[in-house]
């Protein structure tokens, strides 16, 4: 098994773990954490594809690597927006939960 495949299997487990956290944790902050974990796993899978595409004297296919960098930035922006929403919600209600009062 090449190292690429090994990390690919790692990313598969990460995606599953993160999805579990995203679905199961009731607190939004833990969901945000889990979302970042899933994101890391998906980007890792992209990186495995890049590694398996090593050619032309490069260690990896540069296109997926560039896409991951873009994806990392977008994921950070998403996390920042989600955290700001959560913090504001906490300011308004004193609780950090999505449970509605209705």
């Amino acid at each position, binding site marked *: 098994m090449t*190292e690429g495949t090994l990390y690919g299997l790692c990313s598969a*487990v990460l995606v599953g773990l993160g999805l579990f956290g995203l679905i199961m944790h009731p607190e939004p902050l833990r969901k945000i954490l889990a979302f970042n974990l899933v994101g890391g796993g998906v980007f890792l899978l992209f990186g495995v594809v890049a590694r*398996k595409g090593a*050619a032309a004297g490069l260690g990896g296919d540069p*296109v997926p690597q560039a896409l*991951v960098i873009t994806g990392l930035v977008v994921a950070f922006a998403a996390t*920042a927006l989600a955290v700001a929403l959560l913090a504001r919600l906490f300011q308004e209600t004193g609780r950090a939960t999505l449970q509605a009062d209705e």
Partner: protein
Amino acid sequence: MAFDIGLVTLVLGVAAWTIGARETFAAVVGFVAYGLLLALVWVRLAAPDVAMTEAALGSGLTGGLLLGASTRLARTDGPAAIEKPSAIMRLAAAVLCTLVSAGLAALVLLMLEPAPTLAPRAMANIAATGLSNPVTAVLMAYRAIDTLLETVVLLLALVGVWSLARDRVWGGLPGPYHRADPHGLLTFTAQILVPIGILIGIYIFWVGSVAPGGEFQGATVLAAMWIIASMAGLVDAPPVTRRWLRLALIAGPALFFAIGLAGFAIAGGFLAYPESHAKLLILMIEVPVTLSIATTLALLVAGPPERAPAR
């Protein structure tokens, strides 16, 4: 190979800790460790540019953001107040996620090796871009539209964060005021670290055209330096209505758009570069973009305006 197996075990262990920890603070700490370990994985996957971005942005800035959030939200009701999903739900979710993981793992094992790749095409055209770092070539030349849209995405996230300010503090200063002992260790460290960090950030951005690095990594380091300086009380955030702040924010995307549109005239297409001046044009885009992204990232961590502007 043994190293890789060890690394994978560590990564999965820390990830499981992040999901399973009872305390949110412990989970966030686990997440930061996870990010740093992932950066090591990226190095092993021969992707140093991504490793840098993951370490600085995915682990560093994101970790800082989440740590700040977890301490602020720690004063909520105890976990008992939030209803936990039932055991059946947990079992069903666990089964579903195991299936997803198993399916993905099977697909990984079935993956073509070597995989279809664009590396030869990227290298064949790289001379026309004037760069020698192929990842930067993809980001700034071949798929420049993605990078352009991504800078807009960052900016919009900031507008979204700012929109959460209360009306009466609109136009005010983002984030709480950091009081730090001017003779304390944090201030001292910051006074030494920040100038060095700024130089490192600029270097990382500058060298990105020929070696691993680039504007995103450099901008993240610059933003991190600002955050350290503000936590040490050395600088304070400017009010969000300041014209120069807004100019700094849009300078990057605006110049990116402008040079892109100029491409119609000088190279026959949007975001096209004439071969003779490609590197110069890319540099002209990268400098303001680095500045804008650094500003945007720092302000995203600072949060929405919370203190009313001084009258």
